[in-house]
């Protein structure tokens, strides 16, 4: 698996991970704006609630795929080594909350009132996970 990831990324695992995670983080910020419009908290003239909600769902699907790829790359290539403990904890929590949120959206509709809270948790965890890895890497931390 590690060799496959190395081959797919041409040996640039950190760089590919950084790009994918940064795209996911930027889309997550856009998600906040979209769902604020979706719930009617923001009412711009150029975007109505249904279109914002649908784009939120589509963009969220893209983020799930990106996060899954980055997480699999992390686990397969780096595993659970001693350094980066905060990154490991926030990453694991992110996957867990993400999975729970998807379950609520797809099947457990009775828990729909938790979606704003779950969405906020996903955003905060994604931001923390990005900051402790890609953000650190881009900032020259190595």
């Amino acid at each position: 698996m590690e060799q496959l990831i190395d081959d797919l990324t041409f040996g640039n695992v950190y760089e590919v991970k950084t790009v994918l995670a940064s795209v996911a983080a930027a889309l997550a910020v856009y998600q906040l704006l979209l769902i604020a419009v979706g719930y009617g908290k923001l009412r711009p003239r150029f975007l109505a609630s249904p279109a914002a909600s649908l784009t939120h769902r589509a963009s969220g699907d893209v983020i799930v795929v990106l996060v899954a790829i980055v997480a699999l790359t992390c686990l397969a290539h780096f595993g659970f080594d001693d350094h980066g403990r905060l990154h490991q904890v926030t990453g694991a929590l992110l996957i867990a909350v993400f999975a729970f949120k998807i379950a609520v959206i797809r099947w457990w509709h009775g828990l729909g009132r938790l979606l704003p809270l779950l969405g906020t948790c996903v955003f905060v965890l994604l931001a923390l996970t990005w900051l402790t890895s890609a953000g650190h890497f881009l900032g020259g931390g190595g």
Partner: protein
Amino acid sequence: MDRERIAPRQLLGSILVALAIVAIVIVVVVARLGTGTGENRHDDSGGGKGKVEQRQSGDDGG
């Protein structure tokens, strides 16, 4: 979230904004990573000095 009719133009516009965000982030991050790589390569090779020496030798020959 409402169950109103979705305006196609608004949907297309919001999706295009998402694609623009993706494109901009890719360009910015790759440029940032590329800058770091370029600096390292320059530091390792010291190629700039070589180019100056080559140009000087060319002038002498002409």
